[in-house]
């Protein structure tokens, strides 16, 4: 489904602080299943996810999504693809403070112009599914880490994406909450979503639901799983 060939990403090109975050990645990711990216800090895991998830464009090389070359697409179209294909769960959740939980969940759908009522119903259903129905009107600032993550997951799912991307999902959680995350991830996988996760956490890398572990080092794949 996603195919990367000789993908490189450079930051601050031509300046003294030039960094090659990715250095010739060749990788094919199939639809469905759960893939974990691991590697030491600074090895380029997050950067790889931004390229796959259409958050950024590679400096060179090709990224293909369902046989469509997306590496040269303008931001406008990357955004469209990102909105409809990918859902993101960020490491520090990145909820908007000052808004209620359900508003946060609905935000990614605003530019689509869906009828407000239907959108709200869908957001509510997602929150119920994650046992957060009673917190729908709560302000996100006061939510606990586990609750905030579940709101973030609901937000990632609002546009019904095929792929869910999670960057270090368990870094801020204790082991009980990590287990809860894995349970939700298992449910998503059963629903047919493709999961792409980066993690240092052995608890995640060795979980039963993980189909494949890709190891990176210095911007290269050292073990493709």
């Amino acid at each position, binding site marked *: 489904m996603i195919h990367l060939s000789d993908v490189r990403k450079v930051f601050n090109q031509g300046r003294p602080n030039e960094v090659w975050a990715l250095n010739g990645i060749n990788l094919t990711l199939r639809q469905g299943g759960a893939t974990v990216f691991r590697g030491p800090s600074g090895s380029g895991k997050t950067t790889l996810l931004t390229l796959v998830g259409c958050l950024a464009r590679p400096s*060179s090389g090709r990224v293909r999504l369902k046989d469509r070359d997306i590496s040269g697409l303008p931001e406008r179209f990357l955004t469209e693809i990102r909105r409809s294909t990918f859902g993101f769960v960020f490491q520090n959740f990145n909820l908007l403070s000052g808004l209620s939980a359900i508003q946060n969940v609905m935000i990614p759908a605003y530019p689509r112009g869906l009828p407000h009522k239907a959108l709200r119903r869908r957001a509510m259903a997602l929150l119920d599914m994650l046992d957060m129905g009673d917190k729908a009107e709560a302000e996100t600032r006061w939510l606990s880490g586990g609750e905030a993550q579940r709101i973030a997951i609901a937000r990632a799912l609002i546009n019904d994406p095929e792929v869910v991307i999670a960057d270090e999902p368990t870094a801020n959680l204790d082991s009980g909450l990590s287990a809860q995350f894995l349970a939700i991830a298992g449910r998503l996988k059963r629903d047919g979503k493709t999961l792409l996760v980066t993690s240092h956490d052995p608890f995640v890398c060795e979980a039963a639901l993980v189909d494949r572990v890709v190891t990176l080092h210095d911007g290269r794949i050292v073990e493709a799983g």
Partner: protein
Amino acid sequence: MLFHPVIIALLLSSLTSTAMVGASVPFAVRLLRRWDLASGSEAQLLLERRTYLVSTLVQLVLLAQLASLVLFVFNADRMASLFTGAMCAVGTLEADRFGFPALYANIALFFLAAAWLTLDHVDNRGWDYPLIRVKYAALLTLAPVLALASLAELAYFLGLRADVITSCCSTLFSGGGITVAGNSLAALPHGLALVLLCLTLLAVFALGLRFLVGGRGGTAYGAASAAAFPVALAAVVSTLSVYVYELPNHHCPFCLLKAEYGHVGYALYIPLFAATACGIGAGIAQRCADRASLAEAAQRTARCLAGWSLAGFAAFAIVAVCLVARSHLILFGPSAWRPLAEFVVGGGR
């Protein structure tokens, strides 16, 4: 006359618009030279991002242009009382030789900006920025027109002098006397004007329906609506206005906007301007449909614009018919038909 409040407002708007678009010109040149979509370099990314700014700016300029066009005419009408012999906007515009050029330049600018925004809209639908060079080359032509329009406006307002009486001498005989709309448009025979208008509108409707139904002839439709604009204006000046005022020799296109005539001018001009802008846009969008990445999106935009444009022309036609029907003036008695008959017969030979 520079210290008139409305004049300051108009100059403020046109000069800052010019400055803003002018500031985009170096960027346009850079883009024309450096654009390379295949490159994922940061320079290319910066170029792409800057296009958002330029689009937003031109949108703003278009809005300001529209508002200041209305304000310009409105104000000319209001200032008529300042000039000896001026009855309405025409008098004010005639009071300096740059008056009408400034008006025309502003109208042209309105259509150009609308056309540019159509290009921009269509281009943004294509994944490979198919029109980016065309668009920025067009911006390079839009900028001088904007500058010229602003300069004409500035020259006009600088040149305006009210006939002031001072306390020591009478200025009774100061005014040179200004002829009201004595130009050739007004002299167009009524029959000829109406026939031309009917024919043009029929052609527009035929081409528009052909395009909407059959999907062909979009460019022709654009050209037809561009041509319909002056014809419609000529008909307004020479004949429709006469029907409204019910005075055989009053030809003013501006008095129509006055409250005395129920602001009927807006009912004529708003649909006409919108229809022309949309029609030209439809033609432009259709021309873009030959780019692979735009085939579908451009066609959709063109149809949508053509639909609005047709609706606008229809509204104009309906209002025009109503005005003629409602009027107490009868222009076409048996003898009034003679010039038309001569025209038709003469044209047939």
